[in-house]
């Protein structure tokens, strides 16, 4: 359970969620998923399985056709936009913003939900922005224009903006798309830190190996249904993944001091016996 300011537990949970875009096939067909304190949940699944849609439903941007997506017992999509944004932050795949913003101004956008109509930035706002810049390790870029940032820096600026919302739940959509391996690691280190006390994160990703290292739990979404939900070692296995991704996967385990237990790795690898070889 995630704890709110008054010491009460709050959950962000989808229950029996069905959703289809207007005029289209159903995308989600009865999804249950709850986020708890300290968790960093990796949401994996084939293209078109409905991962991003589920993220939008949990973020209150869409309303379920059936079932509920609730924050502490109220419908997320029914909450006033500012109240929702103070609890749930969404990190989009790509950064679009006014062209001449600096990183600091961009991150300060996260304070919108905390500010009144005619009030300027308060000391509290500035402190929250500074903390967010620090945590996402973009404090040294604060005065730089967004246009000058590299791909990895842009991702970190996006996470920093979400952090400045001071949310209890952070929903992240494919953060490592088109990043080089070093930046992928850096961004996932940052995301692993989102699951600290009082916060939880849900990360949509295709990168099973990064999920293996940084997630506390993995949820597999296949064709609009949750087909696996559990610890990394129970989900990233041949028995669970081959029926979904096919036989072209190789599995193994790596161990490093401090991990406590071995972590699985998964590679798409052409097999010699494959007729396509």
């Amino acid at each position, binding site marked *: 359970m995630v704890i709110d300011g008054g010491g009460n537990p709050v959950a962000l949970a989808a229950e029996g969620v069905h959703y289809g875009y207007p005029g289209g096939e159903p995308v989600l067909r009865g999804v249950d998923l709850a986020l708890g304190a300290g968790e960093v949940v990796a949401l994996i699944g084939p293209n078109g399985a409905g991962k991003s849609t589920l993220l939008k439903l949990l973020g209150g*941007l869409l309303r379920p056709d059936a079932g509920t997506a609730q924050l502490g017992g109220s419908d997320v999509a029914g909450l*006033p*936009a500012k109240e929702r944004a103070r609890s749930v932050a969404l990190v989009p795949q790509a*950064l679009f913003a006014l*062209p*001449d913003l600096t990183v600091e101004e961009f991150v300060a*956008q996260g304070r919108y939900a905390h500010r009144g109509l005619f009030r300027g930035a308060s000391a509290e706002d500035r402190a929250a922005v500074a903390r967010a810049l620090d945590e996402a390790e973009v404090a040294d870029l604060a005065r730089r224009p967004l246009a000058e940032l590299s791909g990895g820096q842009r991702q970190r600026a996006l996470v920093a903006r979400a952090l400045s919302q001071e949310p209890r739940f952070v929903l992240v959509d494919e953060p490592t798309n088109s990043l080089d391996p070093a930046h992928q690691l850096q961004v996932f280190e940052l995301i692993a830190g989102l699951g600290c006390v009082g916060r939880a994160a849900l990360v949509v990703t295709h990168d099973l190996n990064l999920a293996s290292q940084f997630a506390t739990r993995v949820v597999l979404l296949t064709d609009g249904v949750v087909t696996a939900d559990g610890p990394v070692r129970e989900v990233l296995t041949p028995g669970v993944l081959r029926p979904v991704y096919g036989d072209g996967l190789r599995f193994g385990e790596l161990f490093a001091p401090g991990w406590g237990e071995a972590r699985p790795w998964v590679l798409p690898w052409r097999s010699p016996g494959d007729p396509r070889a």
Partner: protein
Amino acid sequence: MVGAAALAALFVARVQLGTSSAFDLGIGDAFRALLATLGLGDPLPDLDQVVARGRIIDGATAALVGASLAVSGALLQGLFRNPLASPGLVGVTSGASLGAVLGLLAIGGVTDELLGGRDDLLVAAASNAPVVVTGSAFFGALLVAVFVMLLASRGGRVSVPTLLLVGVAVNACLGGILAAVQDVLVRDNWGVAQSLFRWLFGSLTDRTAVQVLIAAVGLGLALLAVPLVSRELDLFAGGEDTASSLGVSVGRTKLLALGAASISAATAVSVAGQIAFVGLVVPHLVRQGFGARHAHVLPLSALGGAVLLLGAECANLALLGPARLQPGPVLSLIGGPFFLGLLLARRREVATW
């Protein structure tokens, strides 16, 4: 500050300049006449003050109409996340024109009786049925704005080519209807058809105090929305979903911005007819000079629009005198090449469709 000073200087110049050399006023006289109108100092003798008053009203109309069109353009550009949006290109001014014309026809306003012997439809309309003309112009503008918004947005984002093509299509449809109305009128009532035709070119002379009031109310209402949509439109730049996840009430923001853009464009059209490109050019220049934040762009566009249209009128009168062109063609001559340049500069984005 510089903008406000420029506006004041242009205003004095506008009062000094007229279409008839029989009433040439000096700068001092123009200044005095202005002060007198504000209740400060003595008026000019006799006819001079009357002439000056007419010019002051026309100058105020030009400034207010320019400001309204520029604010409307800035709002639409923010809403569509697209620097090529403007009330003219999107079809909002066409919608306002058609709305105003149909409103007049609906109340049987386009008759010799209502025109009261004057062949200027707009003056007559403003004095006899200002609420209907402005109201139906607003309705037409809002209808078009909402329609284009729904038609051109896909996945919450509006692409440049889609917006422009939807604008072209909407303008073509509305233009066709307007042409049909005119065609009927040409056969029915030549005088009215002629004044309608002149209206489409836009006019900023021989306005009335009522029209100044209408333009001022329209601009005032649009400016009221500025503090309610500025930060929100800044966040719109990241897409509607992102804005919503940051806490913006997307529906309310769209409604406010569309309403404000429609009412300012509609009052401008109902007072001065169609004047193109102010709404496109001004916000663009303001963003280049002062950054893209809407808290700056919206009010500065109002100032810039007033300066541009009043300045164009002054230049028009100073250079051509009695042979002056109507403001519609003048602004099109300035704005057309500007728009072309903008398109060419953004060729890559437009070509990625």
